[in-house]
């Protein structure tokens, strides 16, 4: 008996070790990051020069330094914080409402294949409609204000998240299903122990898309009529012909987007660390 144990045991250890080793890509990655930074600095210097020399009209391309000055002035006068808070706040509230609703609706729709089949055409119809087009009607219903802003945001980011949740809740692994059946799993057990956890990579891919859509929704809602938010700043600066001010608002929106995206990705990695095909899922 012992003679047959050894070859098996020998195969166990190296396998585990091999899989735990970190990739040795760090140095190459660092070099790439350096190149990216250099390229960014180079482009900024080029823009500065091009604008100074008026190769390009300053209405189109303000000097990066004037954008920086606008940003500096905006922060030192304290006018940005209110708008950033408003934009981030409504984005998160709208996104949160949509995410919770999408998960619940997705869970309910997927309860039976029949229900999903009956409702799916509606989802497709709404998904094909550019949700931005609904914004004027929502404003007509709810007036200008936070309420309509949040509803617009939620509407815009709801469908991509719903579709991903539905996709995730589908049973993709036939043998897993048969395993559960062989143990006599109930529908609820199948949902709780297999479909729900298995859907998480898809749900998170949906959230990552959703947060981007939510920010788009926020800016549109702010364009259409709002008292505060970075979209409002953008419109005000446009009215004042202040091009550096508009670029400053764009930079702030970009930073907000990056931070929101980073936070979502971070949570995703913590929760669905076990999924090794995250990038494939996101499509």
């Amino acid at each position, binding site marked *: 008996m012992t003679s047959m144990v050894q070859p*098996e045991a020998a195969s166990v250890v190296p396998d*585990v070790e091999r899989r735990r080793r970190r990739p040795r890509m760090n140095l190459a990655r660092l070099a790439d990051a350096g190149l990216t930074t250099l390229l960014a600095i180079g482009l900024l210097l080029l823009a500065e020069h091009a604008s100074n020399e008026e190769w390009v009209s300053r209405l189109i391309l303000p000097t990066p330094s004037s954008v920086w000055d606008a940003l500096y002035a905006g922060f030192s006068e304290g006018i940005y914080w209110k708008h950033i808070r408003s934009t981030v706040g409504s984005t998160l509230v709208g996104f949160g409402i949509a995410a919770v609703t999408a998960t619940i609706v997705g869970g309910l729709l997927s309860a039976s294949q029949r229900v999903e089949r009956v409702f799916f055409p509606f989802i497709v119809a709404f998904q094909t409609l550019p949700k931005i087009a609904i914004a004027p009607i929502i404003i007509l219903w709810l007036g200008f204000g936070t309420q309509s802003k949040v509803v617009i945001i939620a509407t815009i980011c709801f469908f991509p998240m719903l579709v991903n949740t539905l996709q995730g809740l589908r049973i993709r692994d036939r043998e897993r299903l048969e*395993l559960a059946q*062989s143990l006599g799993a109930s529908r609820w*057990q199948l949902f709780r122990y297999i479909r729900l956890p298995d859907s998480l990579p898809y749900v998170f891919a949906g959230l990552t898309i959703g947060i981007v859509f939510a920010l788009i929704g926020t800016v549109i809602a702010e364009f259409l009529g709002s008292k505060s938010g970075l979209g409002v700043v953008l419109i005000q600066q446009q009215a004042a012909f202040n091009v550096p001010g508009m670029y400053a608002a764009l930079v702030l929106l970009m930073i907000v987007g990056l931070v929101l995206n980073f936070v979502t990705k971070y949570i995703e990695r913590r929760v669905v660390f*076990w*999924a*090794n095909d995250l990038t494939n899922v996101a499509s």
Partner: protein
Amino acid sequence: MATSEPSGGEQLAAGLVNARLAVLTASAVSKRYQSQDGGLVDALTASNFQVADGEFVSLVGPSGCGKTTLLKMSSGLIAPTHGEVTYRDTGRAVQPGAFGMVFQSPALLPWRTVGKNLLFPHDILRLDKSSASERIDELLDMVNLPGVRDRYPNELSGGMQQRVAIARSLMHAPDLLFMDEPFGALDAITREELNLSMQRIHSTSGTTVMFVTHDIAEAVFLSDRILVMSARPGRVVEIIEVDLERPRHLDSRTSAEFREIEMHIRHLLHPETVHAEAAS
């Protein structure tokens, strides 16, 4: 080696035990599917056999001969069109939870550690988990994977994952184990290791095993009896008793008796090809 003709109603498996000890009794089971174009396809024509307590029985045959269909009907996961496979003296199919299942893919839950994966049957069957921890260690030892309890499946190789799947299938101490080409996706060396382990697991646990494979040597190595099947229509053509001494070793496969059984099955599976090759 003893063989028997399974068809013809009364005749049951070779040299089998009285019916009281039979874990499974298949009487004239058949399965007919409706194909895509509306026609009827006989996946399996009337088959009779029995599986005795503690026995290791393999189903061997070409693809499309209904091996998996027969296995699933035996486990009650799909219903036969005619006939029945009854479990012990219950007069009906084996009930979910009374058997274990191993597939070609490990079908582990990647979000659970190995230990938690082994607890899956307990979760579904709502079993008492107080002694489960010791059982996990015991089974991981049995499948030769000590110390992987807190690892996640994607940290393990394919062969190790399949060992975990085997351990999981035994967690709830099932009376019967159904294995559907469990080593089909593994490389030859890993497969040999797992064949050795499987033999040991079978003798240690004493569980009755029904095993689907299309590897003839694997079937001969592991089995007490082999149901040889043929395709179009799928049917059991012969039941072969493998009376090689146990425990068998990898070397046993080169013995004359082993080869004789292997060749016999090969002839049954594709008579034309074997003869043609021999003639050339």
